Each structure stands twice: as structure tokens, then as C-alpha cells.
């Protein structure tokens, strides 16, 4: 990801020092995200750490930096580092799936709506307005509760929330593009609707959607954490940052580190995504 970004960033105009800082602003968070991803997906396979569940109660509440448990253990004697890595894994899977689905479905709906205009536009946007007016967390809670807590249902519930946001951005970008001469040219050439959407609209809308997806990653990670925190996301004993924080809250005054570690993981990850999203956004808008 980092390599692709710096390669595509090469032809930007402007003073070289400025563009180097800009490149760094994109590369650094991208590298951080790559490292977090590697730690969550490869870490448990490579590092000698115990399983995230099925710990022994005899080993509960071990402090941080204990032998064999660098971040200590939780009330059930499970290794916290392991739980954080496995929790991060499901967090990232959920977030990627939700944003991916949102980008594809919402992006297509928005572009279609903006391109077609008229009644189709009105109907699609009104339906999405309903979803936007529906308080997002409430919608997610209701769906999660109706379908029961699980990873798939969390993804489904959160997708309800991401689709309208992507659709709005995609529609706005499409409407802006419609004014451009090349769009009129394409239509005058008799290019088919499908081809216009795929070959002319999509390449121009996609960068904005991807930037939004980066900013959305942080939001979705936070909401997924909130769901798990409330017991409606990833069900215990499977680990997630949200349910680890909720579990730690029970003994906040005695063992604050149970809360602090997952909070740190959540913060660092969300910060990396937000920084990347921000830098990408300023790059695209700076052109």
C-alpha cells in the first residue's frame, strides 16, 4: 500500500520539500497500518503466545510484564496480548468487509442515482435518507439484537450504516462530474450508460470513495468496539477490543490495565486510519 501511494504521488507538482512531507504523511500511517495488520494476522501464528481463550483461572489477573504474558492476563486467565491481537483481527476483518461492501454497494447506488437523475434519483436518495435519519448506533443495535451477536451479523448491521454514507459521496461526486465537458462528450458519442458509469465515472469517483473509506475505517472500528462493548457485537469468550474494555470496566479500580491495553490498541489503530484518510484527502483536494 505504501509503495503504491508513494509511486503515484511522484508526479505531484509543487516544491519538493512540501511534497516529501506530504508523502511521509501518507507513508507513515500506511506503514503503521501495515504493521498493525501484520501483527494481528501473522503475529499469533509466528509469535509464541497462548490461545486467546481457554486460559486457566489459576492464572487470572496476572499483572503486565509477567513471564509468558507480556501484557498480563484477564479475569479468566487468558493472555491479554493474544486477545488484543485476535480481537484486532476480527475488528479489521469486520471493518474491511463493512467498508468494502459499503464502497461497492453505496458507490454504485450513488453513481447510478446521480447519473440517472429524475425519479430514480429521488427514490434512491429518499430511501437512503431514511437510513441516514435512522440513528446509526440504534439501527445497528436493533439489527444486532434481532439477528443475534456474531461476526457476520455485525458486518450486516454495520453495512446498513455505511452504504448511505458512501452513496451520498458517490452521488455528489457524480453530479459534479456531470458538468464536466468529457462527460458530455462521452454522452454525445453515444456511449452506453453502463460504459459511462464504469469507464468514465468510476475512475473519477473511486479516489474520493477510497479516501472516505480510510476515514470510515476508524469510524467503523469505533462502532464495532461500541457494539461489542454493549455485548451486541462479538460474543464472549471470543475476544474483541470492545468486549475487553467492557470486561475490564468491572474491575477498573483494581486492575486498570485491563482497560488501558485494549484502549491503546483501539486508539493507535483508529489514529493511523484517520491520519491516512486525512493525508489522502488533502492530497486529492490539493490537486
Amino acid at each position, binding site marked *: 500500500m505504501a509503495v503504491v501511494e508513494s509511486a503515484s504521488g511522484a508526479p505531484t507538482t509543487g516544491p519538493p520539500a512540501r511534497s516529501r512531507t506530504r508523502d511521509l504523511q501518507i507513508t507513515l500511517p500506511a506503514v503503521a497500518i501495515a504493521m498493525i495488520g501484520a501483527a494481528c494476522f501473522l503475529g499469533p501464528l509466528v509469535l509464541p503466545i497462548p490461545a486467546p481463550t481457554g486460559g486457566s483461572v489459576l492464572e487470572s489477573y496476572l499483572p503486565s510484564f509477567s513471564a509468558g504474558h507480556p501484557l498480563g492476563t484477564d479475569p479468566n486467565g487468558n493472555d491479554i496480548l493474544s486477545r488484543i491481537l485476535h480481537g484486532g483481527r476480527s475488528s479489521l476483518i469486520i471493518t474491511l468487509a463493512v467498508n468494502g461492501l459499503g464502497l461497492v454497494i453505496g458507490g454504485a447506488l450513488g453513481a447510478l442515482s446521480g447519473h440517472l437523475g429524475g425519479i430514480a434519483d429521488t427514490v434512491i436518495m429518499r430511501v437512503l435518507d431514511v437510513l441516514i435519519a435512522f440513528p446509526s*448506533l440504534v439501527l445497528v443495535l436493533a439489527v444486532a439484537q434481532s439477528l443475534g451477536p456474531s461476526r457476520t451479523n455485525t458486518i450486516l448491521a454495520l453495512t446498513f450504516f455505511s452504504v448511505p454514507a458512501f452513496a451520498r459521496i458517490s452521488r455528489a461526486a457524480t453530479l459534479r462530474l456531470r458538468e464536466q465537458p468529457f462527460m458530455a462528450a462521452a454522452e454525445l458519442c453515444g456511449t452506453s450508460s453502463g460504459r459511462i458509469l464504469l469507464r468514465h465515472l468510476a475512475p473519477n469517483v473511486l479516489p474520493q470513495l477510497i479516501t472516505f473509506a480510510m476515514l470510515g475505517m476508524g469510524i467503523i472500528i469505533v462502532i464495532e468496539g*461500541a457494539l461489542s462493548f454493549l455485548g451486541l457485537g462479538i460474543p464472549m469468550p471470543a475476544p474483541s477490543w470492545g468486549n475487553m474494555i467492557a470486561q475490564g470496566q468491572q474491575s477498573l479500580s483494581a486492575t486498570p490495565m485491563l482497560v488501558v491495553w485494549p484502549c491503546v490498541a483501539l486508539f493507535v489503530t483508529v489514529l493511523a486510519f484517520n491520519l491516512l484518510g486525512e493525508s489522502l484527502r488533502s492530497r486529492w483536494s490539493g490537486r
Partner: protein
Amino acid sequence: MTAGLARRSRESGLARLAGSPSLRLIGKRVLLAIPILLGVSVLAFWVLNLIPGGAAQQLLGADASQAQIRALEQELGLDKPAPLRYLDWLGGALTGDLGTSVVSGQQVTQMIGSHLAVSGQLVLLAFVISLGAAVPVALLAAFKPNGWFDRLSMLVSITGLSVANYVLAMLLVLVFAVNLTIFPAIGFVPFSENPVRNLHSLVLPALGIAAPLFCMYTRFLRGDLVDQLQGEDYITTARAKGIGPWRVLLLHAFRNSAFGLITVVGLNLGTLIGSTVIIEQIFALPGLGQLLLQAINTRDYMVVQACVVLFAVVTVAANLLADLLYAVLDPRIRYGSR
């Protein structure tokens, strides 16, 4: 004849009123909001109907007999087809009757009323804190773009936006309630009982909600102010007239940027409601969020339905209000496109 004349003159008065662009705009937006609210209530109804096994089954538990379930369904009116039940509910809701809780037997309207005050107070306090802090910080930052204060405030706000509100709430509890014991960790004292302790019990939760808002508002306002200061002709004019930099910032740029801020605040209210749910849970505040969570967990679908629709009404109303304020305040929109 005279009656006809009177009617005509009244009509022309009404027509003149209806011809005012602001009013037409208001009317149009209000009309647009109605189908959205209906859609939300239908969606809520549909989602709640997804609960596997039906509400009666959930209420009675897994080992209830078929006869028991059917009896309860009849009692609750659940045996009627869904569209009919929805219309029943809608009719009641429009007259202020949101039904009866299937768990506690209380009137839902009453339950909501008592919880609404707590959430309302919390949100209001959060708004006061976040706006009260964001406006001066953004003004100071925009006064000297890329100065040290600007850089610092941007660093703080982008970092702050990455802190989930429940993470922040936990840290606040850890520092101020557990370690320093300045504020209570949980609990709520009604305003009518003791106003000082009421505020005291709301400070931490309100801070938890206000911090991300503060970051968002600061970023937005600072960015908008800098855009105005650097790109707008009226600023150049004002400066050319010899008006001092603070005056230009406060009386010229800020007045314009405030419109944008109003819109952002209005659009935020929806997200804000989501965060009250989790903050109220952490601090054990008896607000709407807690009512909703409890209702979701006990499958008290009447209460869930009412809460969802109420939240949607607040969200839509806030967006509407932001739109309208924007239109009323901005002469270009007031007199512009008709």
C-alpha cells in the same frame, strides 16, 4: 359577493405569505421530512419483526407451550397481520400514545418522558462545553494560520477525533473518579433534588460526549475561517478599509463561518444520540439510551420502537432546523434560487 371579495383578499394575503422564499423553503423541507419519518418508523417496525421466534416467544422463554404463546400473542394483539399492527401503532403515536410496555406494563409515553429529561440535559451540557471551547480555540488558531497555536490545536483535534468516546469516558473515570475521586464514577442526581450535585454527576459523561465534538467543531471552524480569510473578496475589502485583524476575524469572517458551524452542529445531533447510548451505559445514567438498551435486552419492542422513532424525529428535526437557520441567516439562499 362581499364574502367572495373577503375570501379573495384573504387568499391573496396567504398567497403573498406563501410566495416568500423563506417560507416556501420551510414548507418544502417540512414536507420532505414527513416521508423520511414514516420510512424510519416502518423500518423500525420491520427490523423489530425480524426477531426470530416472535416477541411472545421471547417474553415467555424457550420452554413456553404453543398455547401460552398464542394466548399472549392474542393479548398483545400480535396475532394481527403486521401492516395492521403498524397502522394501529401509527394512529396511537400520532395522538401521543406510544402504547404500553410489554415488560413493565407502563405507558411508553410516560417512560420516555422521564428518561428524556436526563438525556436532554446531558446533550445540552455537552453542546455548551464543546461549542464554548471550540469557538475561542478555532478563532485563536485561525488568527495566525500555521502558527504554534494553530498547529497545536490541529494536533489535539485530530488526535482527539481518534479517541472513541467510550475509551475517553473510561480514561476520565479512571483519572477523575478512581484516582483523584473528584467526580462520581456512576449515578445521577436529578436537577430538582440538588442542582449542584446534578451538574457534578453530569460533568464526566458530558465531557465524554463533548470532547470529540470539540475536536470536530474546532477543525471545521478553523478550516472555514482560514478559507474565508484567505480567499474571500469581502475580507480583502475590509482589510483595505483599514479594519484591524481581530475585527476582521470576529465581525466579518466568523459571522460567515458561523453558518457552516450551525449546519455541522445540526448534522451531528444524530451521531450524538448514538454516543449518549453508550455513555449513559458507562455512567449508569437513567437516560433514553439506557431505556433503549434495557428495552432491547428485554425485547420490550414497544419501547424500542418508540425510542428509535423519537431519535429519528430528533435527528430529522435537527437537520431541518440547521437547514432552515442556514437559509434564514444567509441572504444569498433567502433571496436566491426559488
